[in-house]
């Protein structure tokens, strides 16, 4: 089959590789119909995430048609059209039973690496390094899906691929970011980062009843989409304004009741702290640049929630713990527990409460994946989301 292979820093390409086979009894093999490039794939693309190997097949946002099932899968049939959550979860361990699927205790054959880095293992993820299992990804013609009796959700006949595809990751991730804010009537929610996840966090905050939603980014087209399509009430371009001052102005000095960091480890900014983080990251003295996170902690009203859904990989520096402690802040975070959110969000899509297709700016063939990564990374052509048909 043809598959997207990481060939080195900023180099991906289509290569001919073996077709996937059933390796565990609860596996299914899918013929991919649609797949997307995730913002977190860009961290991989640039070689920023340890334990990615040359030759690894990328891609964790995908859907397709079931072409084979292992003897342990009783709930799927050949021909079913399914969308697949990006974390691989067994459904049986204590973490899965708590609904914390992205920290599944059984799905990562390389759990020991994750345990060394993070203290405890985390779930396997498709196409996302060997620390997360060494599973081939889904930017390909076919993919093997372990625990296929737990993850994949059958997509109803009337729903298009584009409507369902983002249930695999970014829609539930944005939704979880908003849900963790525990939004109450009258709440102001500020969202750092208006990429696809930020857009869905904004749209979800709106669905969950936020009074005012402030979108923060530096790209006009992204802020424009946040206002016009996702439902932000105010936008803040940090190239023009001081984030903190503007947020205080917009909230009557109270600060947002909840702050969502949808940026993560590669944040941009201004001033000495930006230079400091950029330098330390370049010198490999810190793995992640927490510029957005520091701003969010500083801006959040006392007793509020800072919800972190942007991806962090390792260690950050100059973390304002004093602010968190003295102002009674709550930090909530996590890789999305997609399994928990897919069905309710599918129902919201069916009811027309949200149409996730609004973020798609680029549609291409799998063959053009190298262009897709390049355009997305460099935000050319006002790129927001690249979807590939297979």
């Amino acid at each position, binding site marked *: 089959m043809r598959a997207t292979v990481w060939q080195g820093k900023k180099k991906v390409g289509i290569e001919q*590789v073996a077709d996937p086979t059933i390796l*565990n009894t*609860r596996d299914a093999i899918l013929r991919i119909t649609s797949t997307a490039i995730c913002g977190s794939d860009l961290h991989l693309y640039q070689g920023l995430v340890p334990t990615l*190997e040359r*030759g*690894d097949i990328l891609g964790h946002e995908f859907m397709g048609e079931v072409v084979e099932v292992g003897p342990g899968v009783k709930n799927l049939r050949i021909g079913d059209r399914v969308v697949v959550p990006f974390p691989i979860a*067994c459904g049986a361990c204590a973490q899965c039973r708590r609904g914390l699927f992205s920290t599944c205790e*059984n799905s990562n054959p390389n759990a*020991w690496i994750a345990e060394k880095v993070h203290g405890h293992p985390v779930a396997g993820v498709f196409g996302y390094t060997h620390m997360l299992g060494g599973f081939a990804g889904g930017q390909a013609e076919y993919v093997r899906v372990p625990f296929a009796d737990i993850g994949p959700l059958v997509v109803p006949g009337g729903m298009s691929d584009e409507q369902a595809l983002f249930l695999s990751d970014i829609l539930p991730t944005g939704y979880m970011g908003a849900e963790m804010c525990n939004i109450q009537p009258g709440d102001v929610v500020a969202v750092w980062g208006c990429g696809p996840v930020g857009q869905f966090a904004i749209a979800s905050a709106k669905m969950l009843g936020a009074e005012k939603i402030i979108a923060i980014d530096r790209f006009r087209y992204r802020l424009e989409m946040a206002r016009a399509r996702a439902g932000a009430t105010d936008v803040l371009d940090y190239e023009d304004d001081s984030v903190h001052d503007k947020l205080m102005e917009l909230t009557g000095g109270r600060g947002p009741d909840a702050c969502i960091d949808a940026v993560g480890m590669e944040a941009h900014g201004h001033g000495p702290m930006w230079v400091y983080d950029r330098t330390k990251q370049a010198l490999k003295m810190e793995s992640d640049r927490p510029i957005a996170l520091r701003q969010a902690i500083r801006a959040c009203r006392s007793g509020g929630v800072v919800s972190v859904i942007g991806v962090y990989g390792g260690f950050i520096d100059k973390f304002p713990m004093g602010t968190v402690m003295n102002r009674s802040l709550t930090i909530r975070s996590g890789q999305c527990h997609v399994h928990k959110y897919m069905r309710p969000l599918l129902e919201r899509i069916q009811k027309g409460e949200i149409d996730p297709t609004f973020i798609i700016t680029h549609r291409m063939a799998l063959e053009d994946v190298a262009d897709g990564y390049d355009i997305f990374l460099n935000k050319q052509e006002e790129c927001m989301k690249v979807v590939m048909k297979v």
Partner: protein
Amino acid sequence: MTRRDRTDLLAESLGWFSIGLGLAEIAAPRGLGFCIGVDVDRRGRNLMRVLGAREMVAGLGILSGRRRATWMWSRVLGDAMDLALLGSAMSSQDCDRTRLGAATLAVAGVTAVDVLAAARLSRAATSPGDEARGIEVVKAITVARTPSELYRFWRKLENLPRFMQNLEAVDTIDETRSRWRVKGPAGRAVEWEAEVVEDSPGQCIAWRSLPGADVQNAGRVEFVAAPAGRGTEVRVHLRYQPPAGRVGRGLAAMFGKDPAHQVSSDLRRLKQVIETGEVIRSDASIHTGMHAAQPPKRPDDLPRPVERPLEGELR
């Protein structure tokens, strides 16, 4: 501070002392000569510098932390050389006997400390907790089943190879005795016999290699109910002697270079088998060593996954 920490601190102090003395010998041979009561001529100066270089090398060797005992013994050898030189200086005409005597006494004192440190380091190096006491590993994992179910699964020793990666087979001989086969180095199997020495249904199983085995090895597993229905804490305690004889090599093959890592990985596989029915495989993990996450090129070489219902083995 443990005894080992104290020995290390002593060694480091002596290492720095070597460097300091060496620097003085190289930089100020005459001044140093005056201090110890010898008049240093040109030849003497060069000798002093050579001695200084020797001190520096020994000091750096000790501080590098590698083969510390050897470096420390090199200091003892150097001390002997110094004492001999001081002795020969004693018989020369132009020397200050009082100072020379004091210097000799000082070197003798340092020699005693060096011998003590070297002896301690040698002892520590030959017994890094391994050969003397054997390797001991304690690991635990929580599995979402009752203690009785886990006990039953484990007590059927034929099940052990399902999660112990390097164990090829366990055959039951009778009620308590069993024969274990491990994938040895270069594909050669290593076998030994073991007996169950403690068997408390639902609580614990302990086993050890039978008398006559080259090396003693013993293991014990406890099954304790975790609080509030959180399953069972499976706690494994293993003790074995590393390579010495066939069984030792077999055990080394079984537990690899890092026994603690191997045991915790095996326990994770136990959890996978009990909770999900089998050991999870990924495109990369089916290969040994680093391998790109791509589907296997020759899948027919892999064992086909078969459904093996667990319930029968747990009840």
